[in-house]
């Protein structure tokens, strides 16, 4: 995050936040771990995965990365909230939701 990052702890004074609460850099929510919301998690069976990529665009949390070689990588558990959409979207049963 940029030098403009501001403290928003409950005791912060209004003088110490940015003017008009401006945010000076894009995509900074990447610092927030939402994976700790998860109660169940997706796991992939690479033997069953055919790299059709149908799971990837259906993820609400950008947690199925598609790499430079055009193949999907493992789940990004830092963000994945365990909704299960990917498991249902996979036509090959390669994704299982586990406790």
């Amino acid at each position, binding site marked *: 995050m940029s030098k403009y990052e501001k403290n928003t702890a409950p005791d912060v004074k209004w003088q110490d936040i940015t003017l008009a609460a401006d945010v000076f850099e894009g995509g*900074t929510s990447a610092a927030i771990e*939402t994976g700790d919301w998860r109660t169940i998690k997706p796991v992939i069976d690479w033997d069953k995965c055919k790299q059709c990529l149908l799971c990837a665009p259906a993820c609400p949390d*950008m947690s199925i990365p598609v790499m430079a070689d055009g193949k999907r990588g493992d789940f990004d558990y830092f963000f994945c909230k365990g909704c299960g959409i990917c498991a249902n979207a996979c036509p090959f049963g390669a994704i299982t939701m586990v406790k």
Partner: protein
Amino acid sequence: MAYNLKENLMQGDRLSGGHRFCAGCGSPIAIRTVLRALNPEDQAVICSATGCAEVSTFIYPYTAWKDSFIHNAFENAGATMSGVETAYRALKKRGKIDETYKFIAFGGDGGTYDIGFQSLSGAMERGHDMVYVCYDNEAYMNTGIQRSSSTPMFADTTTTPQGKVVPGKQQNKKDLTKIMVAHGIPYVAQSTFISNFKDLSEKAHKAIYTPGAAFLNVMAPCPRGWRYPSEKMMEVTKAAVETCVWPLYEVIEGKYTINYRPKEKKPVEEYLKMQGRFAHMFKPGNEWMIETVQKHIDAKWEDLQNLAEIK
């Protein structure tokens, strides 16, 4: 260029993880797909009407948007974006900006069909070179599932609770897509999430790159408000399309095209039965509700097919 899922995904996303939409929410899926339709070299200015999208993506000092984003009120996303687009055109004319910028406003159904409607209508009528995207989850979800003019008939919401006296919402869903067509703008489309996302991706690309005002209405289910298990998202949107509850179509310069015609139109029950908000419709004695919805959907589908035949 022909749509290719792999290439589309390899560009990466312009919405970042760490946003606070509920698990399984449809809105970020709509947003990230629309943003991937931007040419990677183009800049974008985005705003959102207050609603789940705005409060989940823009919690100070964090933003999930990699592009410039303007936090505005509930009722004025259309006005905000038309002002920015006008300023850009003025600066461009004076040679003060070199890059290409695109302008996208997002709004929930409450912010679009209801309170932001006049602002949207004005922006479209003035023909600003922008896209307005409604992520339609058919109620005011962020404040606790209140009905909107987009909520379908009989849906159980906190302001249209179903019971012995009232059967849920008593009015039909407003047909906003057709109202936007009536504005005479060059591009209007309706879409949702289907298999490889070709439909939504192509429509978003056309909406962004058609000069002038464009409107995109995207069904974006809310597992909380619709009361279905979050993993069923893609089944719910598929059923909406296969039953013709939410047909996929686009209107280019006034000409209607249906992008997908189900081989065999499924009965509306197939869609309704997946969702808790319609559960009361399946109680004995309430068959008339399902019949009423079926008749309405049949008439709308017939009407759409007639419009698509007009040369």
